[in-house]
């Protein structure tokens, strides 16, 4: 099962931040591949959602970048800035809280029992 893009949209920032927290620096393609690999293809980040998010996070000062030339093309590596590190923690705890609330709201636990 592949999750719908609406579900992923709200969590994309959190996913990207967490990945960068675990891996020192990553580039766009690497991020999509890693997510695919970790979720066993259940979450596939589209390019159309990833790059706007990366640029927005960079503009907000959450990410720092470095570029590397590979032949004729340029590869941009992203890593967390100090502000990004604290934002990651906030985002993750916010999401954990959200999950708890959703479990309660949708009555998921009782159904499973």
């Amino acid at each position: 099962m592949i999750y719908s893009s609406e579900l992923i949209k709200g969590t994309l920032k959190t996913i990207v931040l967490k990945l960068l927290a675990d891996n020192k620096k990553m580039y766009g393609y690497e991020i999509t591949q890693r997510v695919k690999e970790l979720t066993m293809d259940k979450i596939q980040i589209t390019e159309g959602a990833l790059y706007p998010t990366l640029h927005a996070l960079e503009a907000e000062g959450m990410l720092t970048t470095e570029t590397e030339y590979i032949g004729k093309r340029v590869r941009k590596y992203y890593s967390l800035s100090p502000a990004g590190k604290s934002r990651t923690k906030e985002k993750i705890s916010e999401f954990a809280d959200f999950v708890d609330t959703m479990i309660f709201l949708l009555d998921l636990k009782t159904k499973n029992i």
Partner: protein
Amino acid sequence: MYCITDEQIDFILSDIRRNGVETEDLQLNLLDHICCIVEQNLEEGEDFGTFYQQTVRQFYKRDLKEIEEETQLLLTFKNYYAMKKIMITSGIFSAAAFILGSFFKVMHWPGTAALIFLGILLVSFVVLPLMLLLKVKEGQSGRDKLVFALGTLTGMLYCTSTLFAIMHWPGRTALWISTVGVSMFAFIPAYFFTGIRRPETKSNTILTSILLVGATGLLFSMIGIRSQDHQAQIKTYTYVQNEQLLKTMQRKATTIPANSQNAKLVAAINKACEQVKSLVLENAMGVSSIPADIESSHLLIDDGPLGDDFINAGKGVALFNNLKAAVDKYNASNSDNNKLPVAHSIVNASPDKLPQYSSLSVLNSITQLQMYLVNLPEDAGVAIK
């Protein structure tokens, strides 16, 4: 692994550009991404062109430009919050500066001008333009944008003309007239005809328009388009002629000092008078004495308050106290008949009330005092040479 050629890289980059991705950073990111996919997944012998089209097709729903638009949207959204924050902070600051400045003005404390200046500048050049920008960004219709632009312009003009009026700067009447004009003939009609077309805003629009017309009318009635300059001219030339009269009287004075002691005292008063007058003139006209070509230069003396030199321990207060001391000394050593009448002149004013007097009333009062000195009775009379 497929090895991508330089020509293919150029092809991809130009294709991305052609499809509406304008941000350079984004172009490079997408280029690298596509190259990675091609290198990982393109089998030997497979056609590069077809594979490329298939790959890029997965990036979007309608067209590739979506990515550019989404990026711009997220970036402006971020600016949007920063702008809103700046607007609110500077709005609070300017309101505080206004209130403090007005309070200072009532109390005649120093720093009034700076506070009001700051408040007006912030409102007209930071708060109002930012408000307009934010409204435009919120994506209103063209008509609403026009109304907002005109409203902002009116607000900025209003603030600037208030500043000019408070500071007694030249050109204030012209500014007021343009403010009233823009408001009455551009902003209010635009606002009215935009709002009245929509049923849901109709009654509000009528009420607000009536209030706006009323406020603009009140402003217009306060300008006094013609009278102001004539009034200022009469006031200025009354003083200028008083001063000329004094000079003539001083030249023609024939009385001889009754005693040399009095001559010294009178000279001291005259010196103190001239010092105070030149400081007042400098504040009100920018020059320390009346220029010889005052009529052709159209200079007017601003009949505003005396200025910061006459507050607290300013230079003006010291000079003023000098004058007071000189007059007291003279009066103490002369008989009642020959004393200078100071009861209702500026000399009798208490120093802390000085900021409340206007330039011309002080100048005229001092000049009159000097005229008394020329016209003293024989036994105290002095010729000032």
